[in-house]
């Protein structure tokens, strides 16, 4: 019975009690001085724990706010640059797709005009077509590598 009461004393603080448990515990505490003492001790312990009042340096909050503002500006600037890069990539890809038939004909004509082998002018076409994507990919990779070095990762 005392074990049950002590369990409920802790449960009251940790999880809360049902009405039935509450009534039972109250009735028991009325009649048991030892368990009542344990209940009071528990309340004092929690009261002491809740009295925790760390001294907080207001300068720390101000410094953090300043740091957050600077970091927010950096992140927003980086996001804007990255957005511009992605837009450039998308435009480049669209233009590449649209111009591919014309470029193919131009390469074929150059190959015919200067007697260049089919394999060579086709390779030229492929290189010319993937060049923008390769440059953009390299730029993104470079930015990420630089970001990793800057953040010390």
């Amino acid at each position, binding site marked *: 019975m005392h074990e049950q009461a002590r369990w409920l004393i802790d449960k009251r603080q940790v*999880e809360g009690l049902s009405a039935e448990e509450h009534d039972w515990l109250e009735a028991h505490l009325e009649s048991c001085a030892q368990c009542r003492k344990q209940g009071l*001790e528990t309340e004092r312990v929690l009261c002491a724990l809740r009295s925790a009042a760390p001294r907080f340096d207001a300068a720390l909050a101000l410094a953090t*706010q300043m740091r957050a503002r600077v970091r927010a500006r950096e992140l927003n600037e980086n996001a804007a640059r990255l957005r511009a890069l992605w837009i450039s990539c998308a435009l480049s890809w669209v233009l590449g797709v649209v111009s591919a038939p014309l470029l193919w004909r131009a390469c074929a004509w150059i190959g015919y005009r200067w007697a260049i082998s089919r394999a060579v002018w086709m390779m030229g076409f492929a290189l010319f077509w993937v060049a923008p994507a390769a440059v953009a990919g390299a730029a993104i990779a470079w930015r990420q590598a630089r970001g990793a070095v800057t953040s010390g990762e």
Partner: protein
Amino acid sequence: MGLATSWFMRTGGGEAGEVARGLRQRDPSLMDYLIQNYQYRLFRYLLMLTGSRQEAQDLFQETWIRVLEKGHQYQPRWKFETWLFTIARHLVIDFLRRRQPQSLDALLQPNGADRPLELEDTTSASAFEQVFQGEEAASVATALRHLPPSYREVLSLRFHEDMALEEIAHVVGTPLSTVKSRLYRGLAMLREWLKDIYA
């Protein structure tokens, strides 16, 4: 009216959705508001977890920078403080991992369902003694120093932050049963340590 409260006035309330939107936009005035509003609670949590004032101060700044960087991940269905404490906790674990890499497994994958974080006890006596006031200060500080950090953590979240047990489980990343078990054990240990002064 403080600078920070102006954000609330502008958005017309403290809805989690507004916080999420502001975090996605990295709104500086929202950050000012959040830092001012949660500064004390976050610092107390970090202090309880690390037991070191200096480390708590360093991690305090890092937590807010991380909030800024990961703000787009915040979901309005979570309470902001739950998310904030989760971020802070991960930073503390990263910090401790750097300090004692050999105990990483023990830190993240405890053997057994309810083994506390096995951290090197670098808790300084002065850090907790500065926190508690009154004649019981020294005893409470001593008792806390002897509690495993994972017990201190759940006690702080439950009795300082008044978090629901489910929220604590979310922050700590453990099952509800583990949270309860740590709370009961932590409470019992604290009572045992303080029994003499209440006798």
